[in-house]
């Protein structure tokens, strides 16, 4: 009989998108931890294999992924603080948007130098003369 219609995407405000971003970054961090526990556990099995695996990480693509990881962890952490404020601060729900804007500002302020220092080595190796 009746069925759910496909229809368009619900156009929620920033609150909804912060929740989507929180989910996405959470899943990304989970997958990183999964891989990370696996490769780190290798050191107990065979230190040589561990070294080989870690050597394969020394390339620009993985460096970019590392920046992505820092971004994911940073957003998830800052937004987590916002959610705690929404949960426990009486006025949290009323200032959720302002808190989100502050959080995104802080995210950008922290991410710009972080990305700079993390990518500098790769950039110099690839294009630099120094």
């Amino acid at each position, binding site marked *: *009989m*009746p*069925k*759910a*219609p*496909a*229809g*368009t*995407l*619900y*156009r*929620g*405000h920033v*609150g*909804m998108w*912060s*929740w989507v971003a929180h989910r996405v970054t959470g899943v990304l961090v989970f997958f990183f931890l999964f891989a990370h526990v696996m490769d780190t556990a290798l050191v107990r099995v065979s230190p040589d294999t561990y070294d080989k695996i870690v050597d394969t990480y020394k390339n620009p693509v993985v460096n970019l992924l590392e920046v992505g990881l820092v971004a994911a962890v940073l957003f998830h952490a800052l937004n987590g603080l916002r*959610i705690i404020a*929404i*949960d*426990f601060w009486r006025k*949290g*729900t*009323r200032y*959720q948007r302002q808190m989100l804007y502050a959080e995104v500002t802080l995210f950008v302020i922290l991410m710009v130098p972080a990305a700079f220092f993390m990518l500098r080595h790769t950039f110099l190796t690839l294009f630099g003369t120094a």
Partner: protein
Amino acid sequence: MAGSDTPRQDDIPVDASATGDQPAGAADVPAVNSVSGDEGVGSAGPDRAVDPTAQDARTPAVTVRGTAAPSIRDVRLKIRRFLPEQDAEPHWETYTVPTEQGDRLLDAIHWVKWNIDGSLTFRRSCAHGVCGSDAMRVNGVNRLACKVLTKDLGDEVLLEPIKGLPVLKDLVVDMEPFFEAYRSVKPFLLPSPHEPTKERLQSAKDRERFDDTTKCILCAACTTSCPVYWSDDAYFGPAAIVNAHRFIFDSRDEGGEERLEILNTKEGVWRCRTTFNCTDACPRGIEVTKAIQEVKRALIFRRF
């Protein structure tokens, strides 16, 4: 009401069969052209675009008094339609509707039903933002069609049924799961079992405590804006929690603990992920997420 599969009496779908008596004026408007996107003056309602003094049911008296022709703007309503007798899948259909400054979206939808396609089905009752029958998704967000003015919308307006409830026909959804969740929080006063010897007085301050959540009209705009509710229909949903809040924080009510226990489950308040879609969607301006958070805090600290 429990287990009944007939629609609630107070929001009977405005169906083709229910419009036998058309308002005067609607009959002499030719059922024009203007399906699917063709524009231009010709497709605007000829009664209004050509002769501003012609008075039909929808022309307010003020435009007759004025000397200048009322400014008519064509709005394309793109409606997600589904007629269960003939459609396997919902589809989009576009109708061009001439609108005036003060027209509500509901007026435009009525115009389609009365002048273009009588089979268009939707709920509406009071048409003044009180009954809560005409919640629908307008340009991707839940709104009451009777509380949105067409002048505040673009030239193209997307209309869809509210999300997360089974669609019965066009913009009409099965509200039963919604009301089932509502009933399960016991949305009525549970007084102390002792026969009172005097009036149950309440201070203005105590009344203020739950004032916000008394405004709910059960339109389901909040519940069907909730991403959690779309994917998990066992979740009580914002509206049920709002109505539990209304009694939990009522000083005359003794059922607070009972309701808190009902909501202290996996599918209760803890499902809320604070996306604030419900707060943004509420046509009565209830701070829905705030109410849900207050119930959560009452559960944590047992203070209310």
